[in-house]
């Protein structure tokens, strides 16, 4: 590999060097143009993912089964969706990540997908999670943040994951009836509202309080999906977003000091748009982006610069992404970050450059190393610092996996060439020496994969 800048483009901003990547950087005119061209090309659904079903179809199948035939039929439909939709797409997604030419675009998909985490721990929506990422995240990674926010918060997968489908305004038609019947204190569920504020937009330090959370939950009451329809009309069930007026809390609401008049479904859209352009949102997102691409402790100057671009561009994520690529500190500290298990496994597979990879070397190891795909332990998503991933057990598991994985590489790969193609410009003398003195070719490749140079970016 020619230089540190190429390494930075491919590894810090991308998913690690695949065999054709360096030539592509040259063709594009250098590391930065290679990155910028990806922004210009998006959004497109990559061909290997384009044939999978829409979440609305997957979910409608499950919900119709329930409405028409009951719980057993629902369970069976869910099983089929996991088998027929989710697992094949998970595998195709993994293979694509291991081969994608535009790996900066994919990094951004993974970044925003983690920002708007949902988890297959919620079995009911698990089968549609890959579709959720494809529909709500991917098209917007270089679009407007406000559009991504709308797409995410209106998506049935998120509405179920954060319990908004059961959230009913206490003064709505249904809410009044329910309270009269059960004596419950409230029928509102605040989960989605709280996470939108705390995790998705302004962040926990923005100075909102419980009253704001409740007000946003009232605004979002009635945001539901077409699986809630009555059992006597299974043909009316659908798998898309649906606003249910009878659930919606009537009246004006005030959030972060702004008053919103009663406006049904549009009320929520207006609030989301305001949250998307709030200065605290700009700081919150900038901090996460700089932490992701630059350093575990994000330099303040960098954060301020990215936040300013976010604000000045009206939340244009193409402009924001260009500004991140532009950060000098990102290019000045080539090994400051430790790869997450997911990115580590993907980058090892990119280096291996095999046409077909068995599940056990692509999807399974992410889980073994502590980051099962679409299974983050909380709505906060996966951590993004060395502290989250560089633990003794996790490191030893990486070493064990890498040792076994290297043994599956085609014989005849020259370790010295692999070293140069993956971490050449940043490789230490110790790594060169260890590879040169390794007792076998696969041990040499395993040493490259477990080296700090390869595990860092």
């Amino acid at each position: 590999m020619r230089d540190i800048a190429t390494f930075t483009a491919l590894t810090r901003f991308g998913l690690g060097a695949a065999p054709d990547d360096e030539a592509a950087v040259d063709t594009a005119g250098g590391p930065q143009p290679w990155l910028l061209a990806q922004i210009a090309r998006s959004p497109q659904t990559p061909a290997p993912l384009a044939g999978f079903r829409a979440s609305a179809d997957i979910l409608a199948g499950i919900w119709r089964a329930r409405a028409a035939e009951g719980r057993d039929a629902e369970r069976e439909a869910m099983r089929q969706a996991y088998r027929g939709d989710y697992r094949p797409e998970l595998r195709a997604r993994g293979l694509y990540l291991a081969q994608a030419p535009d790996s900066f675009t994919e990094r951004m998909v993974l970044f925003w997908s983690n920002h708007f985490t949902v988890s297959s721990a919620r079995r009911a929506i698990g089968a549609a999670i890959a579709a959720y990422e494809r529909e709500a995240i991917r098209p917007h990674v270089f679009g407007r943040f406000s559009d991504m926010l709308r797409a995410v918060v209106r998506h049935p997968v998120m509405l179920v994951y954060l319990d908004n489908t059961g959230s009913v305004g206490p003064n709505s038609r249904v809410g009044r009836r329910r309270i009269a019947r059960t004596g419950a204190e409230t029928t509102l569920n605040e989960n989605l509202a709280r996470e939108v504020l705390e995790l998705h937009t302004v962040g926990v330090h923005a100075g909102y309080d419980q009253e704001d959370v409740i007000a946003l939950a009232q605004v979002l009451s009635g945001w539901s999906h077409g699986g809630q329809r009555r059992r006597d009309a299974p043909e009316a069930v659908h798998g898309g977003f649906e606003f249910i007026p009878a659930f919606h809390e009537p009246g004006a609401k005030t959030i972060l000091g702004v008053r919103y008049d009663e406006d049904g479904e549009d009320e929520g859209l207006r609030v989301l748009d305001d949250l998307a352009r709030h200065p605290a949102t700009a700081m919150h997102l900038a901090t996460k982006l700089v932490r992701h691409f630059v350093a575990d402790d994000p330099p303040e100057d960098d954060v301020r610069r990215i936040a300013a671009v976010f604000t000045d561009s009206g939340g244009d994520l193409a402009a924001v992404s260009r500004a991140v690529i532009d950060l000098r500190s990102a290019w000045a500290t080539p090994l400051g970050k430790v790869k997450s298990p997911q990115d580590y496994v993907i980058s090892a597979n990119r280096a291996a450059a095999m046409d077909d990879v068995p599940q056990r070397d692509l999807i399974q190891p992410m889980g073994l190393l502590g980051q099962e795909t679409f299974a983050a332990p909380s709505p906060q998503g996966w951590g993004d610092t060395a502290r989250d991933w560089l633990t003794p057990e996790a490191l030893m598991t990486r070493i064990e996996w890498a040792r076994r994985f290297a043994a599956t590489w085609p014989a005849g790969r020259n370790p010295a060439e692999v070293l140069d193609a993956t971490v050449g410009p940043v490789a230490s003398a110790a790594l060169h020496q260890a590879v040169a003195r390794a007792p076998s070719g696969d041990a040499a490749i395993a040493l490259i994969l477990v080296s700090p140079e390869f595990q860092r970016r």
Partner: protein
Amino acid sequence: MDRRRFLMTSGAGLMAALAGNGVAFAAAPTEKRFVFIFLRGGLDGLHALAPYADADYRRLRPRIALERDAVIDLDGYFGLHTAMEGLMPLVRAGELAFVPAAATGYRERSHFDAQNMLENGSGVPYGARDGWLNRAILGLNAGDRRLGLSLGPTVPLILQGQADVQSWSNDTLPDVDADFLTRVAGLYQQDPAFADAFHDAQGAIMPDVDMAGMNGQIGAARNFPLSAQAVAALLAEAAGPRVAVMDLQGWDTHFAQPVRLRDLLRLLSEGLVALREGLGPVWRDTVVMVGSEFGRTAAENGNNGTDHGTGGLAMLAGGAVNGGRILGDWPGLSARALFEERDVLAVNAYESLFKSVLIDHLGLGAAYVEGAVFPNARGIAPMSGLLRV
């Protein structure tokens, strides 16, 4: 070969490579051990510890109530499911206590929210982003030693937080040879973060458990007794962890409950016995608490099962437990006594059990527990008489 043996038998090269990066283990702040076994899915307490002599119990459960010959009588009213017969030596030794009609403050019916609330300890679902047991560990030693242990690659929320914890997994990857690890150590010499983590991994204690017996994922229910062996071996070490969390899944018995619970209760019982055997002399200083996110409906449903309910069962085992008894209040199963006309009323608070373990057993200050571990449970006093103190 396991890593511990590797440490003892590896050549001078590795030891030299690691010498500059020694991570000293501070002395453990306590000799007490605590294990929390989380029965995810909602244990039906009335099927594990059955009020078999209660006419309301038979009225509510015409098909699945345990008959007299399906329980081991404890006090003429409650009987233990025969699948847990292996626990009777603990009962007789006064090392096992039962707390029926127990639950956290959660009163809805979502597994997800109920588990989150039990684990985060704030008193509401999603009220905190870390786990109460992690905050408790911070209070023991500010987190500078990894006192907590979880099984499997993912740390459950109850143990997540600022204090680093250990994890142990039966990952099916082959161990690597000593020669390779020596070379890896050389690569890490110049990178302190990697060198430290690698050094700690080498020093990690590996339980002497026959992994060949483990079938699939460590979290699978059938592996629970073997996992318990591993936990016991790790906790028994003087320099090992002090607090462990184990998950046992599959308790959401909406249908076919009698068959499913028979197997699960047997596995749970075998696991508790394995902990007692494996901990050896340390069992004396141990409390094991078995809990679930909620109980189940008092009445059976139409599928030989039960649905999500409220008051459930907690069990406390260990040499430090003042057991052989049924603790707490029991509201009964009469129509008037049921919560929302369907569930066992939760008159015994999980938080009171947790607090007793933290304060009376692990020795945390009451003020710290009230302020940092369970900040919204001041009204709930630690259950008295739970431990032999």
